[in-house]
């Protein structure tokens, strides 16, 4: 499929980079003129995915997180977040709302629920020991009549 724009980045799995990931998403998305709601939703989505890579994938140890953002035709935003961490043994269980393997870190077990709610499609590929890749798509609404300021 034709890609209108593509931004790929990598950074270490440290929690300060959660805001870096959100900033990159915003900067990539702004030229497409998203609504404030779309921007807020998608910032939340990337934050959940990157946090999971850091907290669960690498269990707060060192590692690298990779993001790929694409703008596809028809204003479809493609988001891919991957880690080379421990992987998810049972994906269905992991996606169950409120299920978390890190209650001691006060994880709510709602990351997947939020990602699913705020995207049109979410696909998880993971294998124990080989890391996890999330692929999500969200179609942005049509651009509104231009406003002069």
């Amino acid at each position, binding site marked *: 499929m034709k890609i209108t724009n593509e931004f790929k980045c990598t950074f270490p799995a440290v929690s300060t980079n959660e805001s870096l990931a959100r900033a990159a998403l915003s900067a990539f998305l702004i030229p497409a003129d998203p609504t404030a709601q779309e921007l807020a*939703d998608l910032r939340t989505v990337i934050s959940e995915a990157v946090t999971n890579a850091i907290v669960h994938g690498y269990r707060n140890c060192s590692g690298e997180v990779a993001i790929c953002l694409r703008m596809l035709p028809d204003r479809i935003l493609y988001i891919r977040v991957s880690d080379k961490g421990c992987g998810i043994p049972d994906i269905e269980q992991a996606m169950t709302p409120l299920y978390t393997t890190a209650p001691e870190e006060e994880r709510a077990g*709602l990351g997947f629920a939020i990602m699913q709610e705020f995207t049109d499609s979410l696909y998880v590929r993971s294998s124990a020991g080989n890391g996890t890749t999330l692929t999500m798509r969200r179609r942005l609404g049509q651009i509104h009549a231009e406003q002069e300021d």
Partner: protein
Amino acid sequence: MQIHYDTGKSQLLVLLEGEIDHHSSVMLRAEIDAALYAHMPRTLILDFHQVTFMDSSGIGLIMGRYKILQPLGGEIILQKPSPYISRVLRLAGMERLAQITNSASPEEVAS
């Protein structure tokens, strides 16, 4: 972040600020709990007026404080969330654990 304690009402007011994510929630948790254990208030008010972003780490933060207060008969009020933060709160079913209000003080809502 600012924390105010009202002895008369046994009310702890926490004015949250900025972005609440996994990174910032660690520090927020420590500061809120220090005040919580110092005063053991009947009511914890978390004010979201100045919060610009929150993901499920913020939900974990609320649930964690709920688990501390609930056995002691305390309650939580989530005050003045933006529409975006309300969306996340509702998605997480936070209205089952806490009162969500848009006004400055809970009295305004009760009246």
